[in-house]
């Protein structure tokens, strides 16, 4: 039996003649795609060339990596005492993420209003608030961590402050966007029944943006749990410190055990926060 594809291909020329426009459009698209791929590949080759990467390094590196993977199995922390130490460090990581997100949300809340066009009509204020938030956001949390370690010393508190700074910039922007797309009608309702400026915000805007903000805060809590695992690299508390130590001392079974513990924690937090997000947002359409 002939498949329908084969049947069509028998008189392909006739089909082409009848539906020329379809074939032509496809050809143009393929051409664009082809050029794009060539350009990207060229960039890749030039990029790799400019990074001075030697093939023998790559090959021997993958060999060594294979060895490390082999040594990583099975994951083990050696003793239960060590396991306890890592578990406490994980709790520290979680605490850093929670505080970092909550404090940042509290701090960013007023700035979200300052940066929103529909609350502050003065463009100078929201322009400078926005640029300020952009600059804060442009600095990575690891850099903030290094700075805060210098201020309050080594330990998880520096990590909390670093995450507060990093999240503050992001939240300020997200909150102001949520405020700007808020429905005008409830605000007008409050104004028309005699509400003043503060009441306009409290009863007209906040009830609308609260679910959005809560959703974003939870989402950031998830992603901060991941980033809080690495700020220990610069001495700002959490599991990262142990991870770096074990990698540097070539204790590969410990490394894989720690990574496994991080995976479990992140999966648990993801599950929990997804449930909470659905509980808060319900069925309203959220961006994230």
């Amino acid at each position, binding site marked *: 039996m002939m498949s329908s*594809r084969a049947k069509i291909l028998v008189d392909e020329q006739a089909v082409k003649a009848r539906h020329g426009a379809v074939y032509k459009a496809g050809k143009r698209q393929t051409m664009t795609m082809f050029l794009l791929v060539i350009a990207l590949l060229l960039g890749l080759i030039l*990029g790799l060339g400019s990074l001075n990467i030697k093939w023998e390094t790559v090959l021997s590196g993958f060999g*060594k*990596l294979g060895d490390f993977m082999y040594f990583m199995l099975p994951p083990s922390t050696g003793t239960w005492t060590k396991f306890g130490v890592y578990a406490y460090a994980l709790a520290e990581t979680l605490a850093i993420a929670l505080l970092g997100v909550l404090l940042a949300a509290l701090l960013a809340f007023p700035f979200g209003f300052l940066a929103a066009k529909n609350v502050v009509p003065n463009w100078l204020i929201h322009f400078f608030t926005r640029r300020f938030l952009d600059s804060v956001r442009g600095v990575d949390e690891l850099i903030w961590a290094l*700075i805060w370690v210098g201020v309050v010393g080594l330990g998880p508190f520096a990590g909390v402050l670093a995450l507060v700074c990093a999240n503050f910039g992001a939240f300020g922007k997200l909150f102001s966007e949520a405020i700007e797309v808020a429905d005008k009608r409830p605000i007008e309702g409050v104004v028309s029944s*005699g509400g003043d400026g503060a009441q306009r915000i409290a009863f007209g805007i906040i009830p609308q943006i609260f679910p959005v903000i809560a959703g974003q805060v939870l989402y950031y809590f998830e992603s901060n749990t991941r980033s809080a695992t690495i700020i220990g690299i610069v001495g700002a508390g959490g599991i990262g410190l142990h991870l770096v130590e074990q990698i*540097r001392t*070539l204790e590969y079974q410990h490394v894989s055990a720690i990574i496994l513990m991080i995976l479990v924690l992140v999966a648990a937090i993801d599950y929990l926060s997804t449930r909470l997000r659905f509980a808060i947002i319900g069925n309203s359409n959220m961006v994230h």
Partner: protein
Amino acid sequence: MAVTNSLSNSLPADRLAFLNDVYNSAISAKRRQTLIDLVVLLISVLVAGFVAEVRPVTFFENAFRFFSYFGRIFTLETGASVFSDPREWFWGINKWLVLLWETIVIAYVGTLLGAVFGFILCFLASANLVSNAWIRLSAKRFLELCRTVPDLVFALIFVTSFGLGPLPGVLAIAIHTMGALGKLFSEVVENISMHPVEGVTAAGGSWTQTVRFAVVPQVMSNFLSYTLLRFEINVRGAAVMGFVGAGGIGQDLVEAIRKFYYSDVSALLILIIATVMLIDAVTERVRHIVIGLDEAK
């Protein structure tokens, strides 16, 4: 907070009391729930505060250092403000621009490699294209592993096997990007219209032909848009790869911070922030063009 203000002037007292009662009883259940939520939140914050060794006293005693730090990084070694002598401030600009370029290239190559492998894996992780649960779930779990382990951790491991330099940075970013994009891509694929897929299958197309002619044309613009977003994120990520010796400008920055080369810190931060903003602006343009092309179709 009940009915107050202008209304209280215009309503009779009994009517107002009635309205207040109705309002209060209507929201009392909600209030109770909010109270419980707040107590739970407060307890978790206190526990977290204890575990994370939050020390408000230390903070307030040393907070001035945080602000004076920003004063110091804008001061040259001579004591003058950096703005008085920009040439002295950006003394290493040639070296730094080379490193910035390296940072962008690391991000570019890492993003591209990650996107290519994420592209290949995303179809295997999509429920509407792969009915074999083993293949699908192992692809999904693999992507999850690559995405959950932070790129810096990959970089640390790769530095021990590939040595210092940009290569471990590129690989770390590529693997993390593959995990993140693979998941996003497969979500896009799971939401496509199945009509073209059925059409190609009915015409006798193989699995790869189905993907090529029925799926890819539907998802390409979304994929491009996500990849561009990821590129932005990766430029930021590549800027700190140097913290663990994986190439880019991070190496110089961490040295400047640790060795208290104050004016270098501010110069490097400004360069990084400016680069990030520039990349963000360019990719946003390109993203709008891509979305525009898709809508014009």
